[in-house]
């Protein structure tokens, strides 16, 4: 499915500096002000210094992660994604997502690109929530590296058993919750939603099938 990348509305700059971006600016300013007010100037500078170090560490990884997400997005076959982890995938979709989450190694930078790509390719909200929950709770890497050495085998086994059903529960609840398909905070994302809706009705209404519809 060689499709053009989604959400092509407005100029690149307006998509970069959209409402969500300014929300993050506001949050950062408020957090910095709170840090200064509650903990003093030194704490603010210390946090800023740590953040810059983290930024240097994370920047190349984020760039690679976005490459992974972008290419995964165009490579993932939409019909297969919808079939296996789409809205109609039922419990099977949640189980697949749970197994995939538990097998995904690495931290958030390695796992989020796939979540973004699967989201763009039509995976269901419930399946993505099951995947993220499973990756956070059942990921084998954390158990091996941290849990068994520090807390012992008994604790690791008991915690894993207690966490086993949770991704399915979370995925099921997320699917049941009302609301639009997510990722519609900003205009370009609404454009994407529009396309998704369009695609869903392709079979019934050939007139909606055009490529030229764009949102201003």
């Amino acid at each position, binding site marked *: 499915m060689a499709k053009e990348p989604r959400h092509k509305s407005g100029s690149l700059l307006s998509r970069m500096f959209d409402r969500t971006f300014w929300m993050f600016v506001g949050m950062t300013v408020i957090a*910095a002000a709170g840090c200064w007010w509650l903990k003093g100037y030194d704490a603010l500078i210390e946090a800023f210094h740590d*953040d810059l170090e983290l930024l240097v560490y994370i920047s190349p990884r984020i760039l690679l992660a976005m490459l992974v997400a972008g290419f995964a997005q165009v490579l993932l076959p939409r019909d297969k994604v919808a079939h296996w982890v789409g809205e109609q995938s039922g419990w099977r979709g949640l189980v697949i997502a749970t197994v995939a989450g538990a097998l995904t190694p690495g931290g958030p930078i390695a796992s989020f690109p796939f979540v973004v790509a699967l989201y763009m390719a039509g995976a269901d909200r419930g399946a993505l929530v099951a995947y993220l929950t499973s990756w956070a709770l059942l990921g084998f890497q954390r158990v091996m590296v941290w849990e068994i050495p520090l807390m012992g085998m008994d604790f690791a086994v008991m915690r894993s058993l207690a966490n086993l*059903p949770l991704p399915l529960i979370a995925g099921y609840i997320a699917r049941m919750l009302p609301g639009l398909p997510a990722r519609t905070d900003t205009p370009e994302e609404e454009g994407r939603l529009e396309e998704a809706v369009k695609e869903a009705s392709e079979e019934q209404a050939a007139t909606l099938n055009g490529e030229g519809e764009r949102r201003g």
Partner: protein
Amino acid sequence: MGSLIFMALMALTLMALAWRHPKKLLTPGLNASFELIMQNAPRVALALLAAGFLGQILPQDTISHLLGGESGMRGILIAWAIGGFTPGGPIITFPVIVALSKAGAGTPALVTYLTAWSVLGFQRVIMFEWPMMGRRFVINRLIAASCLPPISGIITLLLEKIWN
């Protein structure tokens, strides 16, 4: 360094797949990646700063101190309430769990705490999930995940009863 090499290999593999793809997906892939970078990089950078400042306001030991040596149902409830406000990754959190365990916190409370930190931890939400997935997805997931920590704690309580 390991993670950087891993990510680079993953990206190169996908690029090669796109290049060899019969539909010539290299250019569409680069376009999609460029879109994602332009949209997400500024947000993630800001989110990272915000998460760092919030972590400074709410340090780990202030939070974990609240759990102290609690156990049983009380421990589960406290752990549920504070787990999501715990900053930091596993490097910081696991030593804290060890310390809490030595201070007498029960296993069900510790499992609840780890579950809450894993699925509700505010720093990960702010740094990655919100910028990349959007607010609605985050709200949806947080609602769905908010009931999980006590479930894991109660299952652990039952497991302990069977175990012993």
